């Protein structure tokens, strides 16, 4: 049977993939998808720890994280649509009016 440490390592790898995606990609939608990968890595940690301690709290926190992720995706995608209308581009480097 897989141990807690296996799940923690997997979660660390997934979180790093998500972080690397945020750093590397030049497309706002892919960046939001990478944020979702990071949220899922954290969810896996919560469930694994909850299982290890024999408590149900980890699963309930995951439920709340999913709700926040849904809200984040809705508002984030609305902002992406507004920005795309404004500049006609999804490249975050195109938005540099406030950059000096």
């Amino acid at each position, binding site marked *: 049977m897989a141990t807690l*440490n296996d799940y923690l390592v997997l979660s660390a790898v997934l979180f790093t993939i998500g972080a690397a995606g945020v750093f590397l990609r030049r497309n706002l939608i*892919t960046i939001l*998808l990478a944020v*979702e990968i990071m949220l899922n890595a954290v969810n896996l940690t919560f469930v694994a720890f909850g*299982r290890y301690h024999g408590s149900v709290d980890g699963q309930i926190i995951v*439920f*709340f994280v999913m709700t926040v992720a849904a809200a984040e995706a*809705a508002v984030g995608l609305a902002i992406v649509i507004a920005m795309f209308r404004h500049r006609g581009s999804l490249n975050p480097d195109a938005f540099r009016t406030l950059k000096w």
Partner: protein
Amino acid sequence: MSGDLILFYVFAAVAVGTSLLVIGQRNPIYSVLLLIASFGALAGLYVLLDAPFVAVTQIIVYAGAIMVLFLFVVMLLNAPREEPIDPERLVEPQGARRFGVVLAVFLLAELGWAVARGARALFGSGSFDRARGEQISSVRYIGQVLYSDYAFAFEVTSILILVAMVGAVLLARRHDEKQV
């Protein structure tokens, strides 16, 4: 090697592989579809962790609702490919990209070190207690805790959803007067 361990490695490989492909794609449609596969593998891992409620929620809410929202936006914007860098307008942020790779490798090393040293010291072998699996996989028990200990947080969540809904409608609305 028991069946559980083999399943763990299969699901873990699928999750890591599809996640890598998600951030490797230039076409966001493929990214979204691959991420759905990744979420499916994670749902399998939740089943292995005696959390069938989370697994089902993962499929319905994440792979169902949230990813469909992403697909809608990708198709609505009709901007399928990541644009090549236009040399007139933008300087290729090559330095930032290399810095990003270094940061990601550093993060992985740090997390690996924390798991290797900290987790082994704190949790020993980290094997799961089989007896508790029955209790925490019960949806009835989850519901009891959710609506008693976490009742306040649950209600606040509904306000969060309401605010997000109003915000999304307001932000994505067209601003010219004729359309409003």
